[in-house]
């Protein structure tokens, strides 16, 4: 009996192991490997060891792109946090059926491809788009607002696309907070803001960090949002990597930036662990 169950365990984990090895580890190792090669002029690779691809990253032009990407990602993460907390906390005072419905609505956008949803924003935000013609029609503005093809467009797109990744872990953390603690806080005369900073925040910080990671990291790489809503005027790390693999035909350099990005991500996870976060919580979900 015991033998059988261990065999079953084995059989059931094999797909996961194969999946992780074949589809996650192997490609990463390949990327790591080619990041040490040289590129030839035809977009191929010369198989000699070099560190020049990594040295190239520290060119001032690329450092600027890194800083810009981090800036955009930080703003996105902060806005998402500011939206997710009030949303999650106000959900707690709703009836359970309403709450479940609202959480499901947060997930509805996942049913459509994010690229298509991003194109949808063009119809809303462009010069003659729905928002501008609406505001002009109501006489609230006289000249159309520049809502896209600039930084604002990028931030709108990023926040919109990534918000669910913040709401879900924050909601999951908030819902675990003991209601009695909140009531006690109010009974003792704490204001709403004080209750938030002294009770909610310390108890849900792992959820907030979890959500922040899940928002921050994709925000560095979602090149289609900067391309579509930013009008391709701003390059983030994702665009830079994509360019190396396509137009510049410089796979090794692209690979080196990818590895650099992975290292940055691991460092962030390190910080999270350093702050006392649990790796299990990073699994996310509810």
């Amino acid at each position, binding site marked *: 009996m015991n033998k059988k169950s261990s065999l079953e365990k084995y059989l059931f984990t094999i797909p996961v192991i194969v999946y992780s090895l074949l589809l996650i580890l192997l490609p990463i190792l390949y990327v790591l490997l080619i990041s040490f090669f040289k590129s030839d*002029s*035809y*977009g*191929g690779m010369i198989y000699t060891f070099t560190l020049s691809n990594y040295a190239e990253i520290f*060119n001032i*032009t*690329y450092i600027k*792109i890194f800083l810009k990407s981090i800036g955009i990602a930080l703003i996105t993460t902060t806005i998402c946090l500011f939206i997710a907390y009030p949303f999650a906390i106000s959900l707690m005072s709703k009836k359970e059926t309403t709450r479940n419905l609202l959480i499901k609505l947060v997930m509805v956008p996942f049913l459509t491809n994010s690229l298509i949803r991003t194109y949808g924003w063009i119809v809303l935000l*462009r*010069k*003659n788009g729905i928002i501008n013609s609406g505001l002009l029609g109501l006489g609230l503005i006289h000249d159309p607002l*520049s809502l896209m*093809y600039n930084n604002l467009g990028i931030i709108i797109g990023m926040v919109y696309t990534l918000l669910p990744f913040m709401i879900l872990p924050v909601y999951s953390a908030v819902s675990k907070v003991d209601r009695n603690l909140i009531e006690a806080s109010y009974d003792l005369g704490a204001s709403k803001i004080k209750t938030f900073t002294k009770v909610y925040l310390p108890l849900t910080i792992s959820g907030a960090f979890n959500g922040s990671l899940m928002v921050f990291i994709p925000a560095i790489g979602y090149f289609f949002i900067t*391309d579509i809503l930013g*009008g*391709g*005027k*701003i*390059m983030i790390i994702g*665009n*830079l990597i994509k*360019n*190396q*693999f*396509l*137009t*510049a*035909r*410089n796979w090794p350099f692209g690979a080196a930036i990818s590895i650099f990005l992975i290292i940055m991500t691991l460092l962030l996870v390190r910080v999270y662990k350093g702050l006392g976060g649990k790796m299990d919580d990073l699994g996310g979900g509810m």
Partner: protein
Amino acid sequence: MKKYKLLIIFVCLLLLTGCTSNKNKQVVNVLNWSSYIPDEVIKDFEKETGIKVNYGTYSSNEELLAKLSSSKDGTYDVVFPSDYMVELMINKNMLQKLDISRLSTYKNIDKVFLKQSYDKTNSYSLPFLLATSVIAYNRENVNDIYDYKDLVREDYKNDIVLLDDERITIGAFLQALGYDINDYNDEHLEEAYEFYSSLKDNIKAFDSDSPKSFLMTNETNIGVLWNAEAILAKDHNPNIVIVYPRSGYALSMDNYVITKGSTNVDNAYKFIDYLLRDEVCQKIIDDYPYISTNKNTSNYSDEELKEILNNGSYIKNVGENIKRFDRLWAKMK
């Protein structure tokens, strides 16, 4: 255990059927630019010849190269690389020599388009469609424009869309300054950057996917874009004027080639032969109004075509120096 055995047999059977089903059927494997040939043309070819077309698409020459070099020989039979990519593929020994005698419709190709710099003897490639970059503007809202320099004006703030392509767009800046589109001299590139800085505030977006929609929705009044896109925008709004910039523009010729490892050479010839027919060419340019190389369907006179070819420049493979363009492009953004 019985269940597992059954499952294994089932999987094996599935794999086997995957291997054998296409054996007896005539096929041709085509990889082409996305939105370049109407579906109808492919269906008509299949109906007429009984040859099944396995049709795939790509959106850049580099993607095509990556797809070809990362797949087994013979995966693709006919592909459509542009000028510099033809040259590169010939050098990499990826193409086979064409036998013109097998193409009954070869005579339809206008001689003007043959013997281009990238394949001087047309041993490996035949021209299919010519794209050129052009300036298009809405004459209702902006003054006459003849060249890139006319775009640098204070009142055109946020009013221009450019192609999101480092070689074409930086190339246009180089041409505006009187340099060659393929110039990679560092000082000239630095000047190109300065030209960009003077134009920067006027650029609303870089877009290669559908720059025409910027003109069609009045998002911008000016665009530097491919001729076919400009023509489609003009069809939508007759106030749009299309000009070939005086200081030069990019030419991009897409070509028929047959891959070295092609296993369906006969069908590949049949497919090319079909695409060269007058009525088929007409159908293609009706939907995608690039310049047809078929002399019977062209909207241009030979003189005009010669002028278009002479004043434009092909993008050339600059080898390692692409990194200079790429670094400048990163700096611009």
